[in-house]
């Protein structure tokens, strides 16, 4: 909420000229969510300091947020950190109050525009996303700043709750005012996960304009672009393409994750690709004509299966309607030819309710699904799939718990995903599949997924059940 810029440039009072703000006035500017105040707590030839204070009206923010069809929880709540953090609101206020300086103009002392001054900037407070201190440093260090951070405790009365995600940030550097302001303008919202304004293609222009001359060479430019243009993939891609001036952009991998991926996440991702590929191969080998993908999520497997010509019908089921909508989008369902459309059907359903729509399939797949069910609900899933839907073949995968020791960042006893209710060893999985076979007249073969390690097995495991024994 508070940005303080201090300089020891001689004379330090030049700050008033270059920022085009009178040192003895308390000025206020209105903007959509409240007011921005500009004032000087300290003015002397040796040292001058200017503050930009955001005075956000939380009630107005909530109420106008609601009208703006915002799905953003943070903005929809009266108990809100927005009034106290340096967020994208601060960038808006910067642009509004220091527009002259940002445009590199100074009427009274034009020579100041290109003068590098020693600056000390303090921001109270910034919120660091997951990535934390490192992310903040990685944003500012490459630009030559000295960075110091002071983290806030969550609650002094409950030290066991740990640290908060808020920092007081101090930066030091000698550079032109315009450079300083454009860095702040771009990088402050980059730190913030919750953008307050609707991201539109106009944002690209702003990013490119303010990033002119420095963003292109910033080692974290991709991340900056992604985070700045939060939630809009195609915009990110456009922006990156334009940034790299025609060079190919290497972002083909996963388009939707803005965060710096941890080692675990990256490996999980490639594992998932391996898994999907293997499942698709098994289905191809069966020459199945119809497939039921139970727990299809965003449709990764469906996308693979569409390539198999022999498959006439793919039904993707998921309990999350949101995921189904994403799947539809990912598959470009609405743009598909009628013939292609006929092959796909996406339905909301649940593996704990029996469902006539699941009947009559040659193959059903459950890729990384069962571990998302509480163990006492597993019985219901078994009956739904093996007793009632009774497909000829069931291809089922689940993590191999034994392999967890190979993920360095995974604590002992920690599961791979917060929504996993259990993870099984190879033995536990084998026992379960055996019991399925006995109860529901299936035969099973088990195989590892991913590279196997002695005595540990593969990272994931697969069971292929065949009806009739």
């Amino acid at each position, binding site marked *: 909420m508070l940005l303080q810029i201090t300089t020891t440039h001689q004379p330090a009072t030049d700050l008033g000229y270059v920022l085009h703000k009178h040192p003895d006035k*308390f000025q206020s500017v209105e903007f959509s969510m409240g007011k921005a105040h500009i004032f000087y707590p300290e003015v002397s030839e040796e040292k001058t300091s200017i503050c930009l204070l955001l005075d956000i009206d939380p009630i107005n923010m909530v109420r106008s947020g609601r009208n703006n069809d915002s799905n953003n929880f943070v903005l929809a709540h009266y108990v809100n950190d927005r009034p106290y953090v340096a967020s994208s609101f601060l960038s808006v206020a910067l642009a509004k109050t220091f527009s002259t300086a940002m445009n590199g103009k100074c009427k009274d002392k034009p020579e100041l525009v290109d003068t590098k001054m020693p600056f000390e900037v303090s921001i109270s407070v910034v919120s660091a996303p997951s990535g934390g201190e490192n992310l903040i440093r990685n944003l500012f260090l490459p630009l030559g700043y000295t960075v110091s951070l002071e983290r806030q405790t969550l609650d002094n009365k409950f030290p066991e709750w740990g640290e908060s995600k808020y920092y*007081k940030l101090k930066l030091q550097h000698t550079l032109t005012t315009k450079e300083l302001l454009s860095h702040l303008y771009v990088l402050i919202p980059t730190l913030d996960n919750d953008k307050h304004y609707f991201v539109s293609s106009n944002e690209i222009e702003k990013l490119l304009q303010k990033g002119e001359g420095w963003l292109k060479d910033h080692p974290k430019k991709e991340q900056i672009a992604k985070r700045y243009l939060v939630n809009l993939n195609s915009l990110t891609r456009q922006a990156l393409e334009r940034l790299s001036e025609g060079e190919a952009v290497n972002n083909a991998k996963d388009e939707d994750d803005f965060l710096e991926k941890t080692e675990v996440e990256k490996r999980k991702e490639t594992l998932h690709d391996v898994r999907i590929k293997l499942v698709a191969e098994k289905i191809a080998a069966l020459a199945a004509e119809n497939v039921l993908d139970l727990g299809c999520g965003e449709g990764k497997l469906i996308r693979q299966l569409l390539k198999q010509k022999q498959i006439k019908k793919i039904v993707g089921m998921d309990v999350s309607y949101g995921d189904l909508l994403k799947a539809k989008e990912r598959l470009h369902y609405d743009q598909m030819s009628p013939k292609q459309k006929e092959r796909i059907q996406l339905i909301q359903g649940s593996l704990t309710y029996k469902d006539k729509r699941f009947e009559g399939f040659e193959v059903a797949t459950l890729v990384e699904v069962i571990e998302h069910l509480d163990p006492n609900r597993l019985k219901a899933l078994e009956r739904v799939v093996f007793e009632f839907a009774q497909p000829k073949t069931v291809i089922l995968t689940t993590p191999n718990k034994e392999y967890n020791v190979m993920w360095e960042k995974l604590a002992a006893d920690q599961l791979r995903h917060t929504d996993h209710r259990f993870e099984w060893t190879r033995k536990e999985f084998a026992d379960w599949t055996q019991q399925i076979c006995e109860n529901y007249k299936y035969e099973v073969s088990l195989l590892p997924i991913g590279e196997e390690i002695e005595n540990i097995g593969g990272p994931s495991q697969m069971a292929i059940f065949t009806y009739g024994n």
Partner: protein
Amino acid sequence: MEIKIPELSLVALMGASGSGKSSFARKHFKPTEIVSSDTCRGLVSDDENSLFATSDAFDVLYYIARKRLKNGLLTVIDATNVQQESRKGIIELAREYHCLPVAIVLLLSEDVCQARNQHRPDRNFGAHVIRQQYIQLKKSLRNLKKEGFRYVYVLRSEEEVNAVQHIQREKLYNDKKDETGPFDIIGDIHGCFDELQELLQKLGYTIVKVEANEQNFGFNVSVPDNRKIIFLGDFIDRGPDSPNVLRLVMSMVNAGTAYCVPGNHDLKLQKYLVGKKVQLKHGLEITVQQLTNESEAFKQSVENFLYSLISHYVFDDGKLVVAHAGLKEEMQGRGSAAVRAFCLYGETTGEIDEFGLPVRYNWAKEYRGKAKVVYGHTPVPEAEWLNKTIDIDTGCVFGGKLTAFRYPEEELVSVSARQVYCEPAKPLQQQENTLAFSSQQAYDDLLDIEDVIGKRIVQTRLRHNITLREENSIAALEVMSRFSVNPKWLMYLPPTMSSCATSDLPDFLEYPAQALNYYKKRGVQKVICEEKHMGSRAILVICQNETAATQRFGIANEGLGICYTRTGRNFFNDTAVEKAFISRVNMALTKSGFWEKFDTNWVCLDAELMPWSAKAQSLLKDQYAAVGAAASGALPEVQKTLQMAVARGVEDATPFYENFQQKTACIHQYIHAYQHYCWQVNSLDDYKLAPFHILATEAAVHTDKNHEWHMQNIAEICPADPQLLMATPYKIVDFADQNTFDDAVAWWLQLTGKGGEGMVVKPYDFIAYQKQELLQPAIKCRGKEYLRIIYGPEYDLAENITRLKKRGLSRKQSLAIREFALGVEALERFVRREPLRRIHESVFGVLALESEEVDPRL
């Protein structure tokens, strides 16, 4: 001519173009009952005479007819129907929906038709068309019965057509909806005459042997309390005395003291008696033997009697259906060969099992009908409810027992077989499950998606129909599937609670007067004010022991009970803690003598579980404490710089300095407010459980007791574990006594002054109405400091509170009432031992409504 047709029939009008079918239809049927091919042609082509549209038009016609017949509505097909092919479709349609096809033929002379058509410029087809139609129809006449029309009426002239004044609609023979009972329904007797007599006597009937005459076959049975017997068929075969069973049944039916539906065995005997060739096996050979000494006249009477029997009956305004082998919903009250066959044999898969008997398909598993179905045919060890159906053939002739089902009491009365008269081909139906579950519980192990998805309408006792929109069901399905506990535990979800209307006092957003006045204005005499604890809502289902969990809930190996949140999630993430917690509550109940006092072995409690921080850990850290931390970091810096500016003499900085000082004070109060509801939990002793409703125990939903009763009965449990359990302080307000009103307001000020959340005002009676209108079950009134964590740290600054006072409660209150009605409905269904899907439907409904968008701060 008098035309009589069954109430539910499919009427096919027949006649050449111009024979006056449409006028006839308009005269004798409601416009909505008529589906006309010409109209359908018009609908699909804008031209009622278009021949190109015929195929589409008939698609529409059949579609409409199907929907009507499915809904049990008489339907008239207004088309020429002169050709056999076109009539074939109508016969098939009637069979599909088990209603009787009726033909009404307008066979007017060709000249009349020609003349009429000439007056209609839109009909320009040639004379030859009409001639051909006339000839085809005339030829068809003698085949109509053979084609399958059960009633055929032919009108041969305009005079005859005009002479039809009225078409008489007759009730079906199976329609006994006016008969409300009470009944004693008796299952398969199979010649077990001794047991039959004993059972009747046990039921209070007196049997006197009399001389047979034309009206009586040898027994005079006097009936207690206007009751009637319903015999479910299979009187004969296998057992020792089929003739006397027949005599008794026939005597009672003749005397009008019994109804009777036929069984498959009875009809086989009838066939035998009329001389058809039947195989003398499955016990028929014994009956035939027993009948050898009977007179021809008696055998003739038996044959007539059996022939006259109606295959099923619908009683008591459609609430009770009886048939020998049961009956699916879509066949109830209808008539067709398929209905009759189902009544006699039930549904079979066509396969033969290892004992050489046909494999029966258990239609009752899929039964969703509103009527209760009482039936026999398949011997079972015990009569048990399954989806509102009950099979009461308890295999007397196989050494089981003879059972009567008393309606409406729903009691079972049995007498044991005196001996095994016949060895069953296979042991009495093997139990499908090895645990001690009932059939219903075993069946309920798996819910069906069809019972929850899509737009749904749930009927509740408190508030009639409640509609759940599809998008809400979508959200509820995800939450239910991913997070909720075993649905067998989930007998209740609590309704949302509205806050009181906004106060007009300048410093308060909420104040008790508005909460109290909500009820006062609506004519409620007395209310209860309960202290509102700031923790998390918890529903507890606790069983006396694991046997109770298995027997009453059909749940094995999940412990003594459960504690779940207001959205049906497990309250505790740690199973060991959960188990210890449940067992402590269980012990407290045992120690306080709860089980004996309530004559129950389980209870459902509605409670608040503290501390708030135990469950809301992530909300606290990510939101409440986070905001506090951000503000605590930023505001001192702001203060410092503003102070420097003021010290420098910057004009206009002073008011902002003061304003931000105020903000800093607000943040401190805010942090203090949420901290008040947090404490660290190291062991079970750090939890506090404050139950406030004893929702249900065996055979009782306690919504008929007032809230003071709930408070007092809970207060009696609490001393059994004072460390964990907490009785809730309360005040009663009697609107006749202003002192009690003022007292409650003062109490609230005192509670909230100490940092308390506030209070909940409820009508003294659990369920309160104003005229027909269900009132809010509870209204909350929250304290000034507590509201800081709802409306933001600075909510009470003058410029903020005036804006916040604009808030609308109607949506929230409407939700609260609907959810309340659904919640109580779920409890009542559970206590009535209805199938799980019926309970789940209501609970699911609460969850679905909870996904509706409403201001979460209210």
